[in-house]
């Protein structure tokens, strides 16, 4: 599975280069004023997804399917599988955030700073391990359940969020932190009112990466009886029903695109004004 770039350099503010005219003022910029490329992504992506899904639905309604195919591709079942898939993704994302963000914060505090490379190394190993192996292994230990699938997915997707939380926090201009402390903000005050808000854009990029990773990986949940769209793919393969297989793959791809889009929207909304 490919990984999107999660270690984008952080926009480090302040410490501005000297500017000449004192009266000159930087132009005001709206947060929606985005570059051409990302605007196309933001606007075009949902349209493409809708069109492709529409085309698939039309095919589903008109195609000549045998009884097995028709049963596998029944609307009720499809919606169930999509819902399971989304649930797996969201629950795993929730746990990823719950683990990775506090861990990332801790690993950038002076006290635990030294452990950061180790923790990132472990998370790296978690992601480098074949996802299928991780899921099946955990299932043999913990049973074939939804919980097991969520645990495996969480372990698998911690890395991008953890790494970006650390990168985001480390990328903050230390003079801003010192300015905060210097005017009397507490350590926690600086963390919550200065450091985290400024790191949000980088952290959100990690979250989006994790989301996309999870949508893809959640296909494997079917191997531990946790459902999801992977079920269609596996059924398609075992029963030699290519329409089912392709439908499964297509729906996963569309869902991944949609989640990526939602992640981008979220990135924009969560980005504090002013940076």
């Amino acid at each position, binding site marked *: 599975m490919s990984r999107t770039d999660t270690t984008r350099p952080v926009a480090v503010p302040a410490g501005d280069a000297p500017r000449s005219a004192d009266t*000159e003022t930087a132009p005001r910029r709206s947060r929606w004023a985005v570059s051409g490329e990302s605007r196309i992504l933001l606007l075009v992506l949902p349209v493409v997804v809708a069109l492709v899904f529409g085309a698939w639905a039309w095919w589903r309604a008109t195609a000549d399917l045998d009884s097995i195919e028709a049963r596998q591709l029944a609307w009720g079942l499809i919606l169930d599988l999509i819902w399971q898939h989304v649930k797996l993704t969201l629950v795993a994302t929730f746990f990823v955030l719950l683990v990775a963000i506090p861990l990332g914060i801790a690993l950038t505090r002076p006290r635990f700073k030294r452990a950061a490379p180790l923790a990132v190394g472990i998370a790296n190993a978690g992601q480098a391990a074949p996802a299928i192996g991780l899921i099946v292994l955990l299932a043999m230990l913990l049973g074939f359940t939804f919980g097991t699938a969520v645990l495996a997915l969480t372990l698998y997707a911690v890395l991008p969020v953890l790494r970006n939380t650390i990168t985001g926090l480390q990328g903050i201009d230390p*003079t801003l932190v010192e300015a905060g402390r210097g005017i009397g903000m507490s350590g926690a005050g600086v963390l919550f009112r200065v450091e985290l808000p*400024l790191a949000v854009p980088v952290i959100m990029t990690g979250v989006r990466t994790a989301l996309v990773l999870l949508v893809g990986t959640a296909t494997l949940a079917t191997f531990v009886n946790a459902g999801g769209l992977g079920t269609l793919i596996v059924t398609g393969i075992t029963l030699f029903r290519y329409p089912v297989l392709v439908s499964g793959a297509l729906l996963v791809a569309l869902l991944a695109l949609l989640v990526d889009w939602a992640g981008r929207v979220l990135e924009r909304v969560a980005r504090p004004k002013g940076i």
Partner: protein
Amino acid sequence: MSTTTPPSNTRAGGTDAPGNPDVSGVDLELVDVLKRYPGQKKPAVDGLSLHIPAGEIVMFVGPSGCGKTTSLKMINRLIEPTSGTISIGGEDVRGRNVDQLRRHVGYVIQGGSLFPHLTVAQNISVVPRLLKWDSRRTSERVDELLELVSLDPAKYRDRYPRELSGGQQQRVGVARGLAADPPVILMDEPFGAVDPITRQRLQDELLSIQEELRKTIVCVTHDIDEAVKLGDRILILQEGAQIAQYDTPEAILAAPANAFVEDFVGAGSTLKQLSLSRVSDVELVHPTTATVGERVAEVRARAEANGDQAVVVLDERRRPVDWMWLRELAAADTVRPVRDDVLTLDRRATLNDALDMMLTSTHGAAIVTGRRDEYLGVVNFTAVTGHIQATEQQLAEGRAADATAGRDDAWEGGGA
């Protein structure tokens, strides 16, 4: 080691004994303060003892790495001293919760260090909020401070730092430092990141703010001219924060304590005197003025009668808006400015600043303004040279007197 107390100040309008009701600052006292960074043999600050009187600006200068920043940050405990005591207004800084302490000590750093995700108003109100001021009091305070640092509140309150120029960011940084009306303000190279003209403006503004507030200000700089201009006293440090001299700018320039100070202050002590003298010390000339909207014919007649080639154009509140050559007036019936910004000099600017501006002006002179940018007159080369000559003469007399009566602190650079 005993505390160094310099001879009493002779500048800035004289009477600033502690207890002066106008002074809102408090005394600062450092006793045998030592800081040794872990893993370093030599202390960065080696036994610094210093008394800083209430309501004064003390400038820390010295070569890079001599311990200025370290000394400054020990005052608000951003750096904890290895030993020694520091007290603010007679109270040991270690006696208090460190965050509480810092909320009552202003802190201004280079470039302003504003939080980029907060608006100007939010940046300034960080400390008032920590002090649990109600929102009405806070927002009134924000507007008051923006006025104080010459930014229009309505225009700038809701901007983000990146929507401001470097100089404006620095102004907001100063406003943030003043927010909770702290008696002591620490500044670390506050104007280091802006261009010379903006720096000069900010310096003038700081002086005018200080005239009103009379805080105790400790300001680090590596620019001796800035130190001479802003400081009621200057602390010149050598490596390890050893005091080379601690005195008024006048005294330091007139009588450097040793070769190090002499070197640091630089030769050309007459030129440095230019940083000591204010534009308000020299005789201004008064060329023909005109008011926007006045009839050109009348203005021209007046200028020709005075033998002037150019007129200073003022608006209805007597603020200079342009400095026009007569030929530029010809085009219209009534006086209308052709440029949209005219460079002016605050009366608190030093002669050094004045020379800078005069050299770049096509008029070979500079317009001087006073309170609320009101027009005062024009300073030209003749006036400055005259002032330098008078100063030279006074210095020579002073030296002669020194030879008989010991050191003389009374030199004031006010010879005009």
